[in-house]
């Protein structure tokens, strides 16, 4: 695990149709120490997905610095695992081969990477689904595979882009419980993008509220772990923090 730091990050692009420069990210600085879980929330269009895409290296940044463990980011790489809102599983690969894809790209032999994949599938209670294809699974199951596929590649930083936005409410709470448990077991460095305030507070050590391409506020979440919804639903501290963050987002 490594730290992630964003220093005066900016993104402007030229809209050729309108003929003008558009500023998506004005000036964002953020420190995520190794092993910390940070959620980024904000209204639609505040630039939260743009930040994640730049950290992942999918799109270039136009100003400032992105450092992973002190080294600048140049394009996509296996040191930053990504979990996508649309799951982005390979439909032509079984669940086992999806999870073993990262190790395969590193040249890990078949038997060894299958063992790695099975270990991580067990972590998410997916052992029974190893030989199935993604389209044979429910949305919730597919995203479990998405999370496990990113983790199995042992990234320094895990980037999650609204990963639970497209599953139903019950499944979402189960997935949040499971992600919380897995994070407590493995302690990866996580940046979690969401527009769901309770989700952001439930999962994170710290919630960053973004507005119009800038950091509006950072809220620490000192709620004790392990966190499970059965307990937090009625927890006063959780409610207070959620309301505090929600007020910030609504003011944004």
């Amino acid at each position: 695990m490594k730290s992630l730091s964003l220093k005066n990050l900016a993104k402007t692009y030229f809209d050729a149709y309108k003929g003008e420069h558009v500023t998506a990210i004005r000036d964002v600085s953020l420190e995520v120490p190794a092993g910390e879980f940070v959620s980024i929330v904000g209204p639609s269009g505040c630039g939260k997905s743009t930040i994640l895409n730049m950290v992942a290296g999918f799109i270039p940044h136009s100003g400032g610095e992105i450092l992973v463990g002190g080294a600048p980011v140049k394009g996509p790489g296996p040191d930053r695992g990504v979990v996508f809102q649309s799951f982005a599983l390979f439909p032509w690969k079984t669940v086992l081969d999806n999870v073993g894809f990262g190790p395969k790209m590193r040249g890990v032999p078949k038997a060894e990477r299958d063992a790695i994949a099975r270990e991580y599938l067990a972590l998410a209670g997916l052992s029974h689904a190893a030989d199935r294809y993604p389209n044979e699974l429910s949305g919730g199951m597919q995203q479990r595979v998405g999370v496990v596929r990113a983790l199995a590649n042992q990234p320094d930083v895990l980037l999650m882009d609204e990963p639970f936005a497209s599953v139903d409410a019950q499944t979402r709470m189960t997935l949040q419980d499971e992600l919380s448990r897995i994070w407590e077991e493995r302690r990866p460095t996580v940046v979690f993008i969401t527009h769901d305030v309770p989700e952001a507070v439930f999962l994170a050590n710290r919630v960053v509220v973004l507005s119009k391409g800038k950091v509006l506020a950072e809220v620490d979440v000192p709620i004790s772990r392990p966190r499970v919804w059965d307990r937090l639903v009625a927890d006063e501290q959780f409610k207070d923090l959620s309301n505090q963050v929600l007020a910030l987002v609504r003011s944004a």
Partner: protein
Amino acid sequence: MNALLPLWSFVVRTSVKWPILQTLAPFVPVVALWWAVAAWGPFPPAFFPSPPDVVAKFISLMEKGILPEYLGDSVARLAIGAAVGIGLGVPLGLWIGLSKGAHRALWPVLLFFQAIGDIAWLPILIIWFGFGLTTMTFVIVYTVLFPVILNTVLGVRSVRIELHRAAQSLGASPARIVGEVVVPGALPNIMTGLRNGLGYGWRALIAAEMIVGTSGIGFLMFDARRAGSVTEIVLGMIVLGILWYIVDAWILAPIEQATGRRWGLVTQ
């Protein structure tokens, strides 16, 4: 009515056990009608042969070895067309699909040459290569090639950007992404292109064999016209239909079933 239920049950069980019956059953009324019209006799048999005439012709041509030889020639040409079409069309399609520059430069040209359908090339090919194998090979390769290229390009461009990104962030190099993501993602479209290409190619080949051929099913049919043997022409038509059915149902459909459909990329 209830008395018919056991019969219906028998039909269902038999057709599950012998799927070939499901294929053949629809042809029973077609052949029966053909036979009835031939027996009724408004046309002289030399103009309108009956099923037994065609079967007899089939047996005699098989015994003489003419039909197996001509059939072999046509199928071999189709196979060459398919092989060159895949070997050339898929890599070209991948390149044009992946490179923006190549796409901009070549797409209009491809559409232009695709529009000059197969046998529209025959006049100039006959001048260049004369009557024979080169001309026929050109026609079938040309006909297979364009649908394969065009569909491969569409397939490559239909692969969602998230899948490229997922592979990149799992450590895949550009070359591995082609093999692991682009080719399998484009495969359903490649199969469609191949199916269309072979379908058009088969028709073009028969036409080319009629005009410039010295062997093959098309040549057999056109040669029979000179001899005035309607029976042989009808036999050739039936052979064409059966052969395409075999290629489609026994080779192309199972590949599609095992790939795109299994992965949920193609709806049932």
